[in-house]
């Protein structure tokens, strides 16, 4: 499935919750966790990462990957953690509200 606009950022933040990752790892994790339902358009991933960095929600550092190659690692900043919590809460509310609407059985309350 294509990502709804704006969800990429919160997914990336979540992907980084447990520690620094490089960009490829983030994309793999999202695919794995959603059991391939959501696919990240790779071309949008890196702009998103840099955007989050500009906003001060993540910071980056060059490091060495598991197979000894140079890669850029991203990790959450304290601000990023707070933003992730807020975003996650908002999403849950949003999802609940949409579910309620879609689960309605009759036209009452119109």
């Amino acid at each position, binding site marked *: 499935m294509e990502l709804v606009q704006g969800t990429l950022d919160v997914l990336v933040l979540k992907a980084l919750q447990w520690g620094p990752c490089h960009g490829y790892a983030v994309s793999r994790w999202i695919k794995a966790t959603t059991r391939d339902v959501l696919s990240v358009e790779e*071309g949008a991933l890196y*702009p998103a990462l840099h955007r989050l960095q500009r906003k001060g929600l993540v910071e980056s550092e060059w490091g060495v990957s598991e197979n000894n190659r140079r890669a850029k690692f991203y990790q959450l900043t304290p601000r990023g953690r707070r933003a992730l919590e807020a975003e996650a809460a908002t999403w849950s509310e949003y999802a609940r509200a949409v579910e309620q609407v879609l689960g309605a059985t009759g036209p009452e309350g119109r």
Partner: protein
Amino acid sequence: MELPRGFRRAVPPGLGRYGDGVDDEIRFHIESRAAELVAEGMSEEDARLRAQAEFGDRERAARAVRRESKRGGGAMAVVRWMTEGGRDAALAVRQLRRNPGFALAALATLALGIGGTTAVFSVVDGVLIRPLPYPDESRVARIWPVAAGAEGGRRAWSVPDLEDWRARSRSLSALGIYTTSLGGLVVPGGGVPEEVPTAYVTAGFFEALGTPAALGRTLPPEAEEADPRVVVLSHGYWTRRFGSDEAVVGRALDTEDGAYVIAGVMPPGFAFPEEETELWTFLSNVAQESVPWRLRQVRVFDGVGRIRPDTDPATAVVELTGVARALATDLPDTNAGITSVELRPIREALVGDVRLPLLLIAGAVGLTLLIACVNVANLLLARGTARGREFALRAALGAGRGRMARQLLAESLLLGVVGGGLGIVLGTAMVHTLVRVAGDLLPRTSAVAIDGRVLAFAVLLSLFTGLLFGLLPASHLTRTGAPGPASGARDAAAGSESGRLRDALVFAEITLAVVLLVGGGLLMRSFAQLRSVDPGFDTEGLLVAEMIVSDARHESGEDYLSFRDRLLEALEALPGVTAASTAKEFPTRGMGEVWTWAVPGDPPALPGEERRAHALHVHRDFFRVMGIPLVRGVPPGDAPERSLVVNERLARDAFGSAEAAVGSTLDVGGAAGVPIRAVVGDVRHADPASPAPPMIYVDDRVNTRRVFAFVVRTSGDPLTLVAPFRQALVGLDPLQPVRSIYTARSAYADAVAQPRFFALLMTLFATGSAVLAALGIYGVIAYSVRRRTREIGVRIALGADAGQVRRMVVAAALRPVVPGVLLGLAGAGALSSLLSSLLFEVRRLDPLTYAAVAMVVMAVAALASWAPAREATRVDPQVALRAE
């Protein structure tokens, strides 16, 4: 430049470098995916292709990341801007060092242009713009009573008139009169006594100007009542004579007339009425026997006043006119006819005459700077086109157009700043030279200096110039830098567009140069006309020495004459001297006294409308020594003559011709029926552009003054007579000072010095810009010949001869020149109306000047293209065809 770890922790997130290495990131991503696919069993080749396909458009992703990193504001942008700016600057410096010839040419051009502009700005600032040292200067004005009628015009002041005006006027808070023509205080100076330029002033003078003293006080009215024998020093005199001693107030200044108490010292920059004035003292110190200034008719003073704060100048003029009229009615014998007033704000009075020429010079130097900019822009374009490949490559690697343009601009800004620095040094030297040369010609040169204002101007000018000549090449070159291999054909195509641009710049240069050359040419012709005016006497081999015979040791008119005669005898005995004589003043420096005259029997003129002439007291040999021709009548004899000599102008005005004048009589200076003995040729006075004024020459044995200008005719160089003259004088009276001593030639040259100065300056800039334009043409043509080497080689191989090739090159060179010349001539014609008030006997559309300029410019352009044209014919076709 990787920011250190600690720095990154300290700095808020979001700051710091990113956007770099995105290519590495993407590569790592794709390789990781490929590795995964290989682990699942795919071949390396297939895995790589698949991973790339999955990723999608790398370029777009990379660009998106870069766009992201460009957004963002505040401190982050500044850091990025600084690091990139630093890199641009370093790159620019490297580029310039790799092309020293180009850098040198550009820097030299810029240094001259910016230096000249800075120097002229400094002069214009000091003379025209800087505030005068008088508080609230718009209220200070020179004031003249004005007489109506045919011989009307400004009149001078007298002390009784001053007192009446002061009492009656309501719009002036202060009014004072002054003079500098009474001879200065004579200060014994350990050896030779020195006559110090002194201004004699009345109360009200310093109040009108308003400048407070730097030390002590000025000359307020109370001081005059207490004890008028006080003196105020100029700042320069205080520095020179008293070594800036702060305890000078209250000390005595010894003069020939006795001791004066020093009341105060004026601040630097205060120079009224003249730059040379070094002492101010009360007029009441001048004895009545010397100058009967208590008489109302002794009108020899100038006036300055201050308008009340609550009045505006127009109202003041109206009110003062009323005062004049009232006085004319109340005092018909002395003031009739003086019925109005002229008020000229002090700034206008001081600098009004030089404003136009100075502004024209400023315009000229601005145009020269423009030409310099055009030259450098052309240089940059030429070099930039050679770097076409470099730009194409960088564009292919993803450099944005703005980025490349910014780097080019960095180069031109660097050129501008370094050129500007050199220009400031050059400009400082130019200013010093200008002030030394033009010190007497321009008012307020003491205010001209290279200071903070001028430096700030120079810096801004350098930056602006850098932007100006850099913008065009930067925008043009980066536009044509498209990705792809640079081919010779593409280069040629880009070259022709660059070529048109270069042609346009040459066209602009030529136009500006022609305008300047026409201006310079007109002024030079005008100056030449001025110089060719016959002064009316022989200026060669004549020494002039002015002195006021001290009345300390001589008492009567006979004493003065006997002193004069003894000195003349001593002078004529000097080797090399052919003759010597005296007059009260020397014609180009002084006008003599102003007397009224009338033809006996004519109806009496209305008061205030009497006819006026200049009266000069002369020794009997004066005309002979000066070389003033005797037109009619008899030369003076040995006995004192009561009769008059007049000049041709007066003879014509009074009697219609010289013949009619001789033997007739004039009522003059209070005496009736004085016979006219002879008529002599006209002599020009201070301004050769004005016609000779009417003159009456009086035998000084009959009417004696103690002011003498000795004129000494020599067969050799008059300057060699200076020391012998002084010696002869010392032999007669060691305490007699000489006011000034100079050659007649330099005095007459001084009269035309101002027009000469401006004409020379204008011509200097015009020539400079012509040279620049010629260099520009040469550079452009040489460059385009080199680029067309292949084409020329082909032509020669196909049978074209040297002459054809040369003609082709020269024709290409002249293509922008001819329209440039035409437009320049038209522009010069349009602008020449600005010049017309400065031209003497030269039409502003003088065909000779315009034609000469056109021919000179065309010739120079042809010459500048000749060398490259000759080069072109030497092209070896084989080499050319192989060349790229």
